[in-house]
């Protein structure tokens, strides 16, 4: 016990004496949290909207005004012809073109039906889909209103039937994107710092030669490993705490679930990551190698975690792979516990799997760690 305590003490001393590393450990992740949470959003906003009004009636102007009133669209000046508008889209100045045909108002009044042409830049397919929905919503609202106003004069007895749907968004009522992203980004930061630091730590001892000196001492493998990894567990928890405080204070993210559950799960999770870090450092000789391997896994884990792209839309084989992605489970657990207030029974599968990973990863790491070369 005494030995482990002394190693832990030594590790902390070294961490706090490394003046270059301190800000990297504590400040950079928080800056990342603040920047990413504000920037990494899938909300489609500030759509560059152009229109070609061939009708030029009060009704067509009213339609354009609807778009102007929406916070999603930045309405640009109108183009005299569709050709010029297309050219602007080609140059990237315009995302969406709405073309209102001649006799739009007359058609609508006479036939109760009129056509509109919408052209959307669909290079970013996901964004184009969202834009399409927004446009449809606005056009529908417009026609509904137009029908009521126009037809009222024609047949007074025939009121249009209105079925209105009012969606209710659970767990994130205001559809605040940050509520969705912040817990996930917090996961990334905790993972990155603990993986990189633990991966490089033992390699560093290899590089500077101290590991050789340690290896000729009677120190036990488990003592050394626990002593080495425990400080990073603590660091991970500190980062989580600071991150949660920022989420609450700065982003007003609701923390519905139990903090205890979150911390307990995080401990198990960090054990997985530390085991990985140790495993990496056993198979590398320099910090540079360790860093690159850690990055390799990090990138795959992040992109396949369901944080930025839904796992459900991945191909079958990729979905299977994500089963082995610890970040996926941590993102799920954080979102479930933080936003939905899930209890232990709700996240039981994730806890169990993460726990198994922790055991497997650390067993592998301990077995592959050799004092003799």
């Amino acid at each position: 016990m005494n030995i482990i305590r002394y190693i832990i003490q030594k590790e902390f001393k070294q961490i706090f004496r490394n003046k270059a590393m301190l800000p990297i450990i504590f400040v950079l992740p928080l800056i990342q949290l603040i920047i990413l949470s504000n920037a990494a959003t899938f909300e489609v906003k500030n759509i560059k909207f152009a229109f070609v009004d061939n009708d030029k009636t009060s009704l067509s102007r009213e339609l354009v005004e609807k778009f102007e009133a929406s916070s999603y669209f930045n309405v640009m000046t109108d183009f005299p012809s569709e050709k010029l508008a297309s050219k602007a889209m080609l140059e990237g100045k315009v995302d969406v073109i709405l073309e209102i045909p001649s006799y739009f108002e007359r058609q609508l009044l006479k036939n109760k039906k009129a056509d509109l042409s919408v052209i959307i830049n669909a290079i970013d397919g996901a964004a184009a889909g969202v834009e399409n929905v927004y446009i449809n919503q606005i056009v529908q609202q417009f026609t509904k209103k137009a029908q009521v106003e126009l037809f009222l004069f024609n047949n007074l007895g025939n009121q249009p039937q209105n079925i209105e749907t009012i969606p209710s968004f659970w767990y994130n009522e205001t559809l605040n994107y940050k509520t969705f992203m912040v817990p996930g980004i917090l996961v990334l930061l905790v993972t990155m710092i603990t993986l990189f630091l633990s991966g490089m730590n033992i390699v560093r001892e290899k590089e500077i030669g101290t590991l050789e000196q340690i290896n000729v001492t009677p120190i036990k493998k488990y003592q050394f490993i626990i002593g080495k990894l425990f400080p990073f567990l603590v660091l991970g928890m500190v980062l989580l705490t600071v991150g949660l405080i920022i989420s609450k204070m700065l982003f007003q993210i609701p923390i519905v679930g139990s903090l205890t559950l979150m911390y307990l799960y995080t401990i198990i999770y960090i054990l997985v990551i530390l085991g990985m870090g140790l495993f990496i450092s056993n198979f590398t000789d320099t910090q540079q190698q360790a860093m690159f391997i850690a990055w390799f896994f990090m990138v795959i884990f992040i992109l396949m975690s369901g944080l930025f792209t839904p796992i459900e839309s991945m191909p079958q084989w990729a979905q299977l792979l994500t089963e082995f992605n610890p970040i996926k489970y941590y993102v799920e657990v954080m979102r479930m516990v933080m936003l939905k207030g899930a209890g232990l029974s709700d996240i039981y599968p994730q806890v169990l799997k993460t726990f198994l990973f922790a055991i497997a990863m650390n067993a592998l790491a301990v077995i592959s760690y050799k004092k003799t070369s």
Partner: protein
Amino acid sequence: MSIILNNISKSYNKVKALDDISFEVKPGELFGLIGPDGAGKTTLFRILTTLLIQDGGKASVAGYDVQKQYKDIRNHVGYMPGRFSLYQDLTVEENLNFFATIFGTTIEENYDLIKDIYIQIEPFKARRAGKLSGGMKQKLALCCALIHKPKVLFLDEPTTGVDPVSRKEFWEMLKRLQQKDITILVSTPYMDEAELCDRIALITNGKILQINTPEAIIASFPKKIYKVRSSNTYQLIEDLRIYPDTHSAYPFGEYLHFTPKSEVFRSMDLTKYLAERHHKEIEVKETVATIEDTFMDLSKAHE
């Protein structure tokens, strides 16, 4: 016996680092491994300190087999690797405390053993190890290797890169440690240090050339040896190499050491030959062989 090696071999891929090495070191002996870089000294140390497993042969340290009883060895040996390998960002005192703790002891418990050395670095005990001078680092490393009162001490090129005064001090410390019943195996590329050992093994290309006391090794030098000097040293080597009676000629300090092939060699013949070749201030004198001469001779014969 403190250290026993029987037919130890070790290869890295196809390169033979150690080839059938056998020798013994007596308890309390100061034993030197003398050889150039790449001779296999460090490999030998790493096998004896249980950091590396030999391909063949048997070895024991302090009565424990290096393979089967490696855990016991780790409790009873001190190892100072060739490269400074203490924590540069910890202070002198913290480093010492750290190693004392992982050996399950305290500084106080074995203080008498390291006292002589520690008092020299004690004024700097709050200084980080990375900020010490080369000689100080060496002393700290020695303290850390001694803190658990080892039976056998392994020092891998402890004086490489250390200034001459510190080197001398270091060897005096080793002599004192020897009095305290510690067997010391030390390697060095410096031939002058060899003469300070009780016995030495000359090693090159993974093979032992000779094992004996330094005196016996010098006495065994079979030929007469001459020191030669002239105003143009470079030309002198060139000319000696083509001189028909040359067995060997190599630089040695400000002189060249020259051994003749024939028994009947006379120094005046060489002086005459060099004068013909326009050398000035020619000096040819018989001298006593050193360890280095023996080493050069043996490794030449070995090739």
